[in-house]
């Protein structure tokens, strides 16, 4: 058995109600590390091309990584992957909290879910005891009630639950898997897949030790990591506000998506900012398992129409999604929007996109009030926003049109609305306007799960360190957010760094944003935890392998360079004059794409991987398959 790993893979067949436990293959561990890496390997191997995401043949993969369960800060996450019913391509999402570590303590590195249960069930994993339990009484309950009932039923408050809410049951295509009430693996409709499988939740309890190969070395490395964390210049801001600090920061930069990305400055930003939240409703800081960077928060609204609302959260994505994006100026209303999404089990980014999309169509006269069930779709109408969340959850009336995501909604509505559907590959973007953030723009365009910021997070472009830009990415412009040169290499680097984070299942805030570990230090950590003698280059190769395998998967699904694009708004419509330092910007994507494919060693014309690159990364079998399908030629 390998140190650091649980050592087992659980395969559950819901159709037959059977399961098997397989040992973790050591080769898989070394080549893919864990988490997202494990999932991508299985996804490619076990999901046939062009499979419908809602088909019972679709499979779900839940994985953790080698640092999960240790005291490494933020190593608390799990990835859930499947064919996406929302985008039709690779589906993948991850979440923090306490579920991932508990899975590791139960002895599992990966859980594979196959088939479809004849009736609603939930899976209970208690170390080696695996049970499919009746969930008919849970069907129809939201995420919070589901967790409450399961904890009562299993009579153990240390059970960790990952559940779907009502949205997933109702077939909303952007439903997520929610752990610890609010820890959402919400992107690409992974909850929708779970709902289609009649799997209401996974409950897990583990009491096996997580052992590391060299405790003394690990303790020594942790000392350095702790001091790097505590002395980091961002530490105080993260402990106070976490990602909610971005409302103010992006607004200052003129990149805060406002009224559906029509401008980059929100006039009421300071009344919905992370700073304001911390001063008013925040009760205390909260953390994921074993993390000393308490970037989350518990809040309670004491006054006004939403008095009594209390929850952990929100992150920037939800906070800005239900404020600037839809024009809402009341912090409590925004928190209520996030809370509803958490309880129903829906992605806050997609939900706020479809609502702001509808509001823009209304503003432009493309849809009328009567088409929207009589709702007044004016910007900032809190009642409309909250009603629409509810209608989407129930797939009722106008909500039903929005419940398949913005690409589908525009297809159903037609009348030129497609131009206003802001998504890449069927996945909606978060609230950072790419026009003022060129590397982020490129990252959105090429991300393997569609329009997404967490596949790269190329924060280097804020550094304004020209010398470092030249040295690390071949051009001084790489260090400036409004410039283009070098961004292809920046995004390549950050994609791999993000993949490292997702394979270790440690938090990107720590690894990618605060830059706490690099490849050589990761190699040392893996030596201490697993016992491997690895070089920094070998670790990086794992990350590059994962990114390439994802590209292979999507290539097999039929994607090409044409799909690596951005909505027309970002490439043709300059940010208006009130967007401060970003005013007048559009994204000139094509030159950045050329640079990116070049940096990746992929085919510039098609955007597909080359056989030589794949073989270099040990993906010869995959290269051959793409060649046999006529998708690549070398």
């Amino acid at each position: 058995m390998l140190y650091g790993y649980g050592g087992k893979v659980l395969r559950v067949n819901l159709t037959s109600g059977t399961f098997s436990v397989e040992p973790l293959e050591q080769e898989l561990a070394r080549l893919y590390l864990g988490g997202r890496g494990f999932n991508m390997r299985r996804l490619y191997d076990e999901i046939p091309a062009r499979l419908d995401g809602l088909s019972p043949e679709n499979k779900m993969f839940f994985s953790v990584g080698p640092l999960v369960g240790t005291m490494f800060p933020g190593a608390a996450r799990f990835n859930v992957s499947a064919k996406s019913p929302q985008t039709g391509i690779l589906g993948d999402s991850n979440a923090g909290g306490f579920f991932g570590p508990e899975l590791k303590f139960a002895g599992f590195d990966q859980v594979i879910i196959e088939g479809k249960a004849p009736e609603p069930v939930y899976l209970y994993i208690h170390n080696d005891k695996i049970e499919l339990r009746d969930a008919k009484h849970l069907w129809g309950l939201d995420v919070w009630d589901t967790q409450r009932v399961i904890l009562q039923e299993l009579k153990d408050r240390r059970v960790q639950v990952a559940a779907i809410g009502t949205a997933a049951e109702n077939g909303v295509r952007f439903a997520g898997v929610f752990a610890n009430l609010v820890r959402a693996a919400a992107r690409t409709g992974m909850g929708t897949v779970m709902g289609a499988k009649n799997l209401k939740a996974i409950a897990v309890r583990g009491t096996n030790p997580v052992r590391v190969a060299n405790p003394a070395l690990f303790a020594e490395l942790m000392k350095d990591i702790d001091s790097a964390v505590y002395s980091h210049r961002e530490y105080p801001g993260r402990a106070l506000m976490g990602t909610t600090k971005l409302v103010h920061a992006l607004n200052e930069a003129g990149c805060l998506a406002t009224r559906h990305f029509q401008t980059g400055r929100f006039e009421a930003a300071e009344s919905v900012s992370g700073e304001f939240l911390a001063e008013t409703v925040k009760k205390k800081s909260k953390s994921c398992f074993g993390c000393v960077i308490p970037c989350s928060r518990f809040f309670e609204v004491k006054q006004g129409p939403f008095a009594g609302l209390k929850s952990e959260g929100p992150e920037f994505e939800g906070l800005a999604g239900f404020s600037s994006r839809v024009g809402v100026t009341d912090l409590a209303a925004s928190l209520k929007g996030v809370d509803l999404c958490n309880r129903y089990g829906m992605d806050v980014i997609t939900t706020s996109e479809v609502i702001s999309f509808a509001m823009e169509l209304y503003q432009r006269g493309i849809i009328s009030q009567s088409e929207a069930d009589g709702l007044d779709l004016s910007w900032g109408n809190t009642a409309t926003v909250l009603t629409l969340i509810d209608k989407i959850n129930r797939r009722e009336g106008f909500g039903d049109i929005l419940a398949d995501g913005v690409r589908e909604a525009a297809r159903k509505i037609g009348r030129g609305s497609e131009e206003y559907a802001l998504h890449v590959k069927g996945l909606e973007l978060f609230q950072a306007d790419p026009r003022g953030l060129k590397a982020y723009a490129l990252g959105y365009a090429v991300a393997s799960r569609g329009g997404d910021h967490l596949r790269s997070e190329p924060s280097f472009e804020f550094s304004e360190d020209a010398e470092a830009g030249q040295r690390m990415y071949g051009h001084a412009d790489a260090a400036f957010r409004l410039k283009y040169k070098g961004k292809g290499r920046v995004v390549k680097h950050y994609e791999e760094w993000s993949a490292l984070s997702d394979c270790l299942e440690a938090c990107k805030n720590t690894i990618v944003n605060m830059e706490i570990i690099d490849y050589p230090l990761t190699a040392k950590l893996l030596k201490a935890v697993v016992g491997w003698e690895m070089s920094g280059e070998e670790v990086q190769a794992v990350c590059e392998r994962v990114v390439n395998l994802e590209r292979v998967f999507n290539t097999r699904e039929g994607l090409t360079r044409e799909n690596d694009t951005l909505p027309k708004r970002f490439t043709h419509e300059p940010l208006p004059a009130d967007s401060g330092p970003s005013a007048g910007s559009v994204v000139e994507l094509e030159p950045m794409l050329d640079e990116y494919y070049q940096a990746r060693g992929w085919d510039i014309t098609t955007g597909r991987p080359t056989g030589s690159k794949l073989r270099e990364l040990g993906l010869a079998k995959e290269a051959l398959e793409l060649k046999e399908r006529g998708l690549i030629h070398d």
Partner: protein
Amino acid sequence: MFDLRVVVEEVRGFCDLPMRSGDYFEVRGGRIIVPEGKHICLWALSAMLPMFPAKQRKIDEENDWLPSTQHMCCPDPNGMVIYRIDRIADDSSNTQQAVKKVEQERNKPFPRMLVDEKVCTGCRSCELACSFHKKGFFLAEEARVRVMKDEENGLDRPQVCRQCGNARCVQACPEGALERHPETHAIILNAELCVGCAACAEACPFGSIHFKEQQPVICDLCGGDPRCIERCATGALRFGRAGEAALKGGARAVMKGGQ
């Protein structure tokens, strides 16, 4: 019998009497003596009065909380006037001076685990630090500190031995398997005597005695240098004496804006 001097150590709230820091009165035998021109608050006096005869007497009982109790608070919730009760000896006698010094040393409370659940993030880093230090691997079930969580209400409660003065667990143990560490004052288990009856866990008012394989696991303060505290980012766990600056631990940054 000792005489006592009762000194206002700190005024945390607002006292309109007013009592001021440094004000004092003395208890000599059966009399209360207030210095000329000074006064004593009725609220505070009513709260402290029963304590004086006890504090005047020499007590030498194992586990007694009284010798280490020095501070009392005025019951006026707005006032929060903190009083310190000192024993005073007859200045003319050298022997008594020596006794006083020893008594002061002895009466200083032992440093203990201080828990502030209002700032606990619920991360359970303390559990990991504890099991790693004690066992060399990570497992909450081995930890002597455990965090109980109520996610819906945002409540996080670190359950760890507080080294109570009058430790009920020690009293409850029918086998005499629990005792005080002479230096750290931590509760130490004599595993050979323990029969695993869990009477100690039932007696613990903080729910801080955890069980693993029929044996209690109790915080031993890591011999006086608790390791969990190194991993507590907010100061929810600290080590020291209540009302004094912590010997170890504290918030690494401001965790909440505005006050």
